[in-house]
């Protein structure tokens, strides 16, 4: 395969919301930008998201940077890095303003003075803060594609960013560029650049088919960073959405709903109809997904690995009709989906839905500072990260709508940071760069035409199955170690995988690249998960039930790979004052109790109470 050499100032890796934002901002600052994306631009998780974005103060005048900050930190069990959380709280409004200027259009409030918000605080927020958009994430992608059309920066699409090229000299380690496989031309491209922004999304495909992510989420950015010596934080914190489809096969894992969509009277039931959980709308995604996954693990699940979500109690009486209207307005696509797959009665929520947890979002990732610049041990100057691939912001819980805010807030910061860095830095001298890029290309060129009895796609399935079992929503130490055994076994077989010799869109080569990235990612998650011995945040440790969160809060796990192997260390975070944490907890408990009391009221009274509540929302 030929190696072409190119020179830019900044490389943006990824094609979703964070990448397009960073590329637009860097390009506006006048540096030469190349965007490298393995999927066509725009085709990331932003596109398929529900389209609700968190904007501070959008729903109540009493909101403030401080209130938002503490809400985020407390819900993230103080794992979130205070300086990132603060940047996030501060930029929340200006990021939305940026999107509005680029052409994003929300519906207006009845008074016409601002965007219409969701009628209630969404997943984990203590205030109304989410603004929905027509056609969900598509609104965002139409807007961000507009910025590409305007700026017309160069792109390489259908191009796999294989590795960073890092130069070590007397002044330290510096990013010199990256190596890219451009599938349509069948060439390797060694791109020299002073700065690289990784905006490659998450790792959902590690759990395929039990994920609602785009296929492209194969942990590429985490793996690229680890291979370049970078540390990852909070990698054990993976959010599983509780309500996803269990069938048909090609749609297993597809998103159906949040705990909030269970309404005040939704009940989770096992395969025999016995209740597992109530008051779900006041619980976190992790709590609900954990109960569901444990029931399945205990043999109380359906043949498809799910349980039943029974919403029928919500639609009874006069208030029930109002509830259904709210549901229709909030999740029309999901009701349509349920109607097609489970029947009309299910779409009217008169009969239960079969649901399962599904990998939704990875809170962990590349440790960055407030400008999106990589920091910590093994730091290479010039490396930036934005969006899901960055870590240290959400802590143990990513609240609803925060992901769409994150891609803009840190997309802007990383794009600006990278452009500034590139303007002030010298590119590596081209002779030295050629040597380094040839070195980096070596292992990839060796893989072409490899003979053997194994196939990357089959080994990938083996890994995915092991990951769902061992580092999924329910974990124990033995199961987590089992994942590391599996990755070792797969690695040993990589020398005997069958890889085509062709250069143009070599699918087995692409599969091998992604499999290697998934292996590194699985190991990062497993090693972090071993260090986190208690149930905290997004998953359940069944072997450590008693110590639930006792010692784990305000401590992040950092994992890193060096010559000896994986190392993990603990980062102590600032603790939120106790009285604030207790206050937050009390509020949650009161809400759950409230829902409990509502259930015991005589039906006619309950119907009147709920009618009043829903009327306000409508």
């Amino acid at each position, binding site marked *: 395969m030929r190696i072409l050499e*190119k020179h830019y100032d900044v490389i943006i890796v990824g094609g979703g919301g964070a990448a397009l934002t960073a590329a637009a901002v860097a390009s506006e600052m006048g540096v030469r930008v*190349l965007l490298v994306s393995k*999927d*066509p*631009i*725009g*085709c990331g998780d932003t*596109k*398929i998201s529900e389209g609700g974005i968190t904007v501070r103060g959008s729903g109540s005048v009493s909101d403030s940077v401080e209130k938002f900050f503490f809400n985020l930190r407390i819900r993230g069990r103080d794992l979130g890095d205070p300086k990132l959380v603060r940047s996030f709280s501060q930029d929340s409004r200006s990021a939305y303003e940026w999107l*509005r*200027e680029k*052409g994003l*259009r*929300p*519906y*207006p409030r009845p008074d016409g003075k*601002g965007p219409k918000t969701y009628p209630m605080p969404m997943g984990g927020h203590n205030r109304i803060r989410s603004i929905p958009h*027509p*056609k*969900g*994430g*598509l*609104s965002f*992608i*139409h807007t961000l*594609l*507009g910025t590409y*059309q305007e700026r*017309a920066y*160069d*792109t*390489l*699409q*259908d191009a796999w960013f294989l590795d960073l090229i890092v130069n070590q000299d007397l002044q330290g380690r510096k990013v010199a560029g990256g190596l890219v496989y*451009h599938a*349509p*031309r*069948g060439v390797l491209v060694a791109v020299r650049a002073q700065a690289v922004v990784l905006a490659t999304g998450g790792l959902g495909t590690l759990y395929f088919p039990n994920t*609602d992510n*785009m*296929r*492209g989420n194969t942990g590429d950015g985490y793996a690229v960073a680890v291979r370049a010596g970078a540390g990852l934080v909070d990698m054990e914190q993976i959010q599983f959405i509780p309500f996803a489809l269990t069938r*048909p*096969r*090609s*749609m297993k*894992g*597809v*998103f159906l709903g949040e705990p909030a969509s269970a309404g005040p009277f939704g009940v989770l039931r096992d395969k025999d109809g016995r209740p597992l959980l109530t008051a779900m709308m006041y619980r976190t995604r992790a709590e609900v997904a954990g109960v569901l996954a444990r029931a399945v693990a205990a043999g109380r699940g359906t043949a498809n690995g799910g349980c039943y979500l029974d919403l029928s109690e919500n639609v009874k009486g006069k208030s029930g009709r109002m509830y259904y209207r709210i549901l229709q307005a909030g999740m029309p696509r999901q009701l349509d*989906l349920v109607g097609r797959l489970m029947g009309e009665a299910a779409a009217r929520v008169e009969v239960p839905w079969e649901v399962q947890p599904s990998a939704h979002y990875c809170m962990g990732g590349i440790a960055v500072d407030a400008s999106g610049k990589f920091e910590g041990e093994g730091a290479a100057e010039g490396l930036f990260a934005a969006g899901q691939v960055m870590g240290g912001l959400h802590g143990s819980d990513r609240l609803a709508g925060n992901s769409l805010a994150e891609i803009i807030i840190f997309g802007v910061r990383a794009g600006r940071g990278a452009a500034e860095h590139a303007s002030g830095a010298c590119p590596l001298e081209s002779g030295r760069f050629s040597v380094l890029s040839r070195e980096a290309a070596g292992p990839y060129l060796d893989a072409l035409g490899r003979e053997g009895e194994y196939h*990357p*796609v089959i080994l990938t*399935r083996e890994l995915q199955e092991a990951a769902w079992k061992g580092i999924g929503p329910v974990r124990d130490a033995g199961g987590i170690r089992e994942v590391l055994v599996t990755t070792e076994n797969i690695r040993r077989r990589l020398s005997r995988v069958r890889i*085509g*010799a*062709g*250069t*143009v*869109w070599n*699918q087995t080569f692409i599969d091998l690249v992604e499999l290697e990235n998934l292996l590194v990612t699985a190991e990062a998650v497993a090693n972090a998960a071993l260090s986190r011995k208690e149930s905290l945040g997004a998953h359940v440790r069944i072997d450590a039930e008693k110590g639930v969160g006792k010692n784990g809060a305000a401590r992040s796990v950092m994992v890193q790979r060096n010559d000896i192997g994986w190392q993990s260390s603990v980062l102590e975070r600032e603790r939120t004052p106790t009285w604030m944490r207790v206050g937050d907890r009390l509020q949650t408990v009161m809400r759950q109790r409230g829902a409990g009391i509502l259930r015991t009221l005589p039906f006619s009274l309950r119907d009147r109470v709920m009618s009043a509540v829903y009327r306000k929302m409508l």
Partner: protein
Amino acid sequence: MTDEIPEYIEIIILRQVGDKNACDQGTGQAHRFKYALQPGEQPTALDVLIRAREEAFHDLAFRYGCRNRKCGLCTLEINGKPRLACKTKVRDGDRLGPLQGLPVIRDLVVDRTGINGQLAGRIGGDHRRSSWEPLVPGGIFVSLSGCIACYACLKGCPLHEMNLGAFHRPRDFETPKETVVYAYGNPYTFLRLRRIVEDNERDQKTRDQALSTALSLGLETCRECLGCRCQMGIPLIREVIEPLLKDIEKLRT
């Protein structure tokens, strides 16, 4: 013992094999795949493709993303008709092939860069919103925002077909900025332009620029056709082509 006869359907997948230089417009070789059905199962084309790659053709190239008709990546042709693989059920004997009208890179993968880059550098300038303009629920702007960029509308578009055989290089760093990758438009590109014209927060200059771009991409020939179809049900003729044609008239007078 019960005699359980496994039930199969046989699907034909059109593949491009051998290491060619990209971008031949070919029909490919027919490869047959037997898909074992579970009781009562009606598989989608995507079910078949995912399984075919696991069981038979380990190097089969095809795109997919969300598995839930939202991302527009898995567009292909089923018996010659453009369809989303994740949405369309298949039957015994169905033929799956790449979307015609875009250069085939490998198997079912076509090059999309000529389309998603067609407007790059052609829409620009300063169009900051001047004031808050209400968005109408159910209005055209909202309807057009539902486009998932699956490109199924390209199939059979006579205007887009005029591009074929002309310039087929992927739009990337080796494509000179001043080159128009595809000289002629298509329903998707016109939808993107129409969305700008429909955006009442944009200034007049930008909206006029969108109209003149539509004109330069050959919109006027659409008058004779009006045959566009959208897989997602967006009324392309009523909401994109006809209003654009009308606005162009206004622009002239």
